[in-house]
């Protein structure tokens, strides 16, 4: 029983560490990638994944080892799930609308013509 418990703890610890590492890698992307849209991919979403992993790891740790079902962590997970895409969407849109250019090696931009079209109409 104790071995299982110890193993479980190690597993959870590793799980959490993996989450942290995913976060770290995404941050690396945040530094490395060339334009704001790409960075957005890396950062926001990959980080989200990492954080979700960490949160669930902690949740299970609390549940199994501290005998506490933390509704707040669950709520946190739901909230992050719910909100981070919206944040990413709005930020990307704002970037695009304020004229932040795409990376020079981007291959296509179908939004550009549409917006110009709308502008002419307006």
């Amino acid at each position, binding site marked *: 029983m104790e071995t299982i418990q110890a193993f479980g703890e190690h597993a959870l610890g590793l799980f959490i560490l993996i989450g942290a590492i995913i976060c770290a890698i995404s941050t690396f992307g945040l530094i490395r990638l060339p334009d*704001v849209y790409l960075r957005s991919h890396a950062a926001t979403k990959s980080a989200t994944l990492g954080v979700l992993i960490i949160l669930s790891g902690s949740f299970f740790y609390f549940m199994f080892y501290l005998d506490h079902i933390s509704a707040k*962590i669950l709520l946190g997970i739901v*909230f992050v799930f719910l909100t981070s895409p919206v944040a990413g969407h709005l930020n990307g849109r704002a970037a695009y609308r304020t004229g932040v250019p795409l990376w020079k090696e981007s291959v296509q931009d179908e939004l550009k013509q549409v917006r110009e079209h709308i502008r002419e109409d307006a």
Partner: protein
Amino acid sequence: MMDTWLILSLAVLSLSILGCMYRLLKGPSISDRIAALDTIGIVLLAMITIVCAWLRTTTYMDIVLLIGILTFIGTIAFARYLERGEVL
């Protein structure tokens, strides 16, 4: 032994906050900074969760949710301000 994992994770997360700080300060566009800020918020949220596990208390769990909410609202506000020049 759990503590070792947790502290290790904390260290890794601190590194990623540093990375975000770099982007935050560097820019160049405001959207970049907003993205970085958003990421910082989320990583911070994770860190506090880990701290809670480490201290074996749920006292600071409220902060986790709080950071989530603030990050969300903050990002939206900045994005809207950027796009329209006004928030409300």
